[in-house]
């Protein structure tokens, strides 16, 4: 068995495959690509399992898996805002009102997802808590507002990353009326997360949309296989191939991009915020 050939083929078909292995296997974290492949090749018995795991978040998940993934992120946000509000750092008035409102939405999302999972015959996943050490390390109003921005923008990207799996007509065994319901529910949460993100960004003096000029633009939240700075949509190079000429910055801002589950759960993003 030629593992290098397999991995090369896989990486050609799916450039992110090594990243998927990486995020699931911390042991490979600090290895270069060649060393990573060598390590994989040296452990043939593990490879089958790794393949399964690497793709578990993409095309093998059931609707309940997807809902539980969303629930994990909502739990994370819910706990973060609970801690943020309890810290006493949020100024009274408009900021306190806004955080209470956002928290109320996250509560709603958690209860909603739990209910839907249960009704579909699944088991809601265990609660997820926001990592105390990260919270403490950012424990000022401005610092935690920055964390909130990253959480909300991650949420927007994460929901976007699962929408295609919930397309009505997907082969997941659910009746189409339920498929319509699940997709619409996900979309209705997705746009609310985007509104949250926009408001938090405004509070921080940033543009409401993701921009290369953000103070947090370098954060991994905005990178990934399809980074937020993307300027090609549906094979159309937007700055040069449209009826008018637009700057790369403007076309990137006009589209939000998805993150795969593996990317979201990577330690550099939401994965690093989970207790």
């Amino acid at each position: 068995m030629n593992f290098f050939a397999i991995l090369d083929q896989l990486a050609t078909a799916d450039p992110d495959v090594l990243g998927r292995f990486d995020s699931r296997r911390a042991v490979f974290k600090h290895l270069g690509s060649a060393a990573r492949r060598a390590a994989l090749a040296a452990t043939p018995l593990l490879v089958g399992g790794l393949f399964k795991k690497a793709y578990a978040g993409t095309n093998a998940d059931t609707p309940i898996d997807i809902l539980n993934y969303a629930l994990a992120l909502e739990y994370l946000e819910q706990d973060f805002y609970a801690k943020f509000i309890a810290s006493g750092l949020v100024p009274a008035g408009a900021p306190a009102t806004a955080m209470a409102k956002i928290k109320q939405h996250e509560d709603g999302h958690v209860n909603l997802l739990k209910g839907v999972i249960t009704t579909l015959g699944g088991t809601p996943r265990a609660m997820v808590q926001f990592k105390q050490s990260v919270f403490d390390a950012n424990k000022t109003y401005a610092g935690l507002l920055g964390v909130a921005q990253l959480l909300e923008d991650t949420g927007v990207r994460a929901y976007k990353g699962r929408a295609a799996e919930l397309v009505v007509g997907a082969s997941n065994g659910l009746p189409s009326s339920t498929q319509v319901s699940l997709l619409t529910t996900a979309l209705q949460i997705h746009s609310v997360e985007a509104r949250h993100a926009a408001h938090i960004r405004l509070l921080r003096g940033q543009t409401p949309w993701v921009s290369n000029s953000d103070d947090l633009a370098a954060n991994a939240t905005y990178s990934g296989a399809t980074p937020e700075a993307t300027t090609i949509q549906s094979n159309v190079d937007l700055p040069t191939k449209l009826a008018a000429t637009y700057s790369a910055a403007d076309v990137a801002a006009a589209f939000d991009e998805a993150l795969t589950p593996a990317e979201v759960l990577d330690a550099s993003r939401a994965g690093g915020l989970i207790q």
Partner: protein
Amino acid sequence: MSNHLSSGSQPLEADLDRPLLTPIKRRSFFMYAGATAGATALVLAGCSKSDSSPGTIDVGSGDGGILNYAYALEQLEAAFYAQIKTGTYYTGLATGSAEKQIFDDLALHEGIHRDFLKAALLANSITPLKDLTPDFSTINFNDRTSVLNAAQTFEDTGVAAYNGAGRFISGNAYLALAGKIVSVEARHAALIRDLRTYNTFVASDVVNTFTPSAPAVAGQYAGEGTPNTTPNTQGNGNPGPGQERSKRPPVILQAVNNFLASGSKLSANSFA
């Protein structure tokens, strides 16, 4: 029109399975809708005059129809932000002011969405809708309040429209594409709302804010319509807790047609 397709009081979601009271798998609906234009015309002929929307341009069926629907909405938004620049509200804004920058950016984003969707339609061999002629006669472009109110209407409508169109999309790539645009529209909507009345980025007229006391029921919260602050029950048409409005194409177009000139008014008969 919907009376011909639904069986009365049942939620509309259930009717998607059987547009003509005949069991048809959801997935084949688009093929069915496209291949039986004659039958559709017959059904339309049975509609009352007010339902058949004489003189409207239909956005079409299938994913191409939804793409053209999105193209229509983006055309309207782009035209609106372009026209803002001709009014004294905008021209009176100080150079370098945040408000001026905002409208410059919004005009660019919507122009990009419009131009991109046209390019995407052409690239997929789908005939784009014609260039629509807007009718913004109800908007006073010299007045800040009038402009901001209209902007809020357009942006909120855009979000509800994409949220409500997702169910009609059958191609993963198109659904992903809609997702990339709708969240930017939601960011715009939140911004305009905050500009108009600070902290209304998620006010209860677009996002439901009640806190449920018990876990929700599947399907219970995928409703449409205007959010309120009381729990909904299945089929009563309200979004669930923390969820935004979602409206289907015909409902959206009813409002949008108020901003389109005669000859540019739209219908979406395949997406009821």
